[in-house]
């Protein structure tokens, strides 16, 4: 007796099921993604990753095509950020904020470039092109949008303190908003958060350019400082403390001049009265010893 299904139909169903199983198992599927990187409650700490080397991975981008990361950072410093195009959260706002800050600070394309990589294996180059368009930087030579293999992305993630985790409930990746300043393949600074202040960006770009700030005063409520560092201009401006330091010298010089002037009246009158021969019994200073 037959079940009403032809053996061909059963075969097709089996093949389809097998295909789905294989696809689910082998193809990079969000359903199977674990946390990549070290997930922390606190934002990634720049101090831990400072000066560490960034893995030199191959990336694909338009219009450059296939290139190594090192080829890019050798040309000029990079601001690297990791996003995914289906992001309903912070990715686009962060990129827009970065675009605005970069426009305000200047030097994009000349002093540094911005590399936006996707950590989502589903993202293609055309997805990235759409994202670039969406942010409003399509065609801008300062911005590079690219993709890389999952293993290579994982290497970058582990080397920089970034992390991402698939959340089934929202069907989104959970991840920090973070931009990594890279110079000569080494991590120089982080910018954490979705809102990029031009002042902070300026600081990072200065360090990427190789400018060195030997001091960093820690934020403290302090009475008088000698100098205040203005991150916007990168210059040290004198503060009230410097005046206090110069005060002793200045006041003393002025005070001395005043003292001598005050005494000049006495000097003149003493000279007018002076007559050494008229004072009896007094000794000549020279003969005192």
């Amino acid at each position, binding site marked *: 007796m037959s079940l009403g299904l032809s053996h061909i139909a059963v075969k097709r169903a089996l093949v389809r099921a097998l295909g789905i199983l294989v696809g689910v198992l082998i193809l990079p599927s969000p359903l199977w993604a674990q946390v990549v990187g070290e997930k922390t409650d606190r934002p990634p700490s720049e101090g831990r990753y400072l000066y560490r080397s960034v893995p030199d991975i191959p990336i694909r981008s338009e219009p450059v095509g296939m290139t190594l990361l090192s080829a890019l950072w050798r040309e000029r410093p990079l601001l690297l950020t990791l996003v995914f195009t289906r992001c309903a959260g912070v990715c686009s706002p962060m990129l827009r904020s970065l675009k605005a800050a970069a426009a305000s600070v200047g030097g994009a394309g000349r002093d540094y470039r911005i590399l936006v990589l996707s950590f989502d294996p589903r993202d293609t180059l055309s997805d990235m092109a759409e994202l670039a368009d969406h942010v409003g930087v399509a065609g801008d030579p300062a911005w590079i949008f690219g993709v890389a293999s999952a293993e290579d992305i994982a290497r970058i993630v582990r080397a920089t303190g970034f992390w991402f985790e698939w959340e089934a409930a929202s069907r989104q990746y959970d991840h920090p908003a973070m931009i990594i300043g890279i*110079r000569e393949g080494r991590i120089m600074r982080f910018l954490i958060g979705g809102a990029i202040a031009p002042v902070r960006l300026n600081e990072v770009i200065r360090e990427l350019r190789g400018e060195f700030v030997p001091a960093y005063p820690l934020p403290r409520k302090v009475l008088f400082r000698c100098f205040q560092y203005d991150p916007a201009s990168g210059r040290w401006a004198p503060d009230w403390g410097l005046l206090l330091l110069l005060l002793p010298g200045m006041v003393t010089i002025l005070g001395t001049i005043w003292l001598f002037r005050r005494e000049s009246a006495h000097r003149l009158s003493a000279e007018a009265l002076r007559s050494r021969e008229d004072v009896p019994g007094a000794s000549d200073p020279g003969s005192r010893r």
Partner: protein
Amino acid sequence: MSPVAVFRLFLGLAIVVAVVFLLVARSTQRVREVDYKAAGQARKVFFFTLTGVLTAFLGITLPRMPYPREGVIPDRVVHVVGKQFAFAISETPIETDAQWEEVTSFAPPVRIPVGSLVEFRVTSFDVNHGFSVYSPQGQLLAQTQAMPGYVNRLRLRLNEPGRYTVLCLEFCGSAHHRMRGVFFVE
């Protein structure tokens, strides 16, 4: 120039000074008139020689200032926080008293690969301390101040493997002499 060599230079110069003073003192045994013109000439020579030597040493030594140069990227960063009476030395930043306690009490010493250019970021949570690095042979290699409210950046290339001691070099209270830290280069 090693400190001992500097000491030898100083000793040599001090002996020269002493000999000059001795000879001048002995010259009083035979009274004579001073040839002020010759003395004036000698003084001129002394002036130009001294100024020349000082300028030369300025030229030689100023480029060797220990302040970090622009454009050089160190291999790693080590964070140091001084507080009465220990140094917390760690590759992760130390931002609170609790972290300082943890690092000084529990953390294993930092281990640095030999030949690295290390940047020490040094600060203090209380008074001025002096972060100094002593080589495995007990020679002072470099130092910087640990000042509250500021971070000093000292860069050092560590070419010799071994145990490095950190001693406090700015008087900081009753246990100043016991204040120390350690790290390893391997």
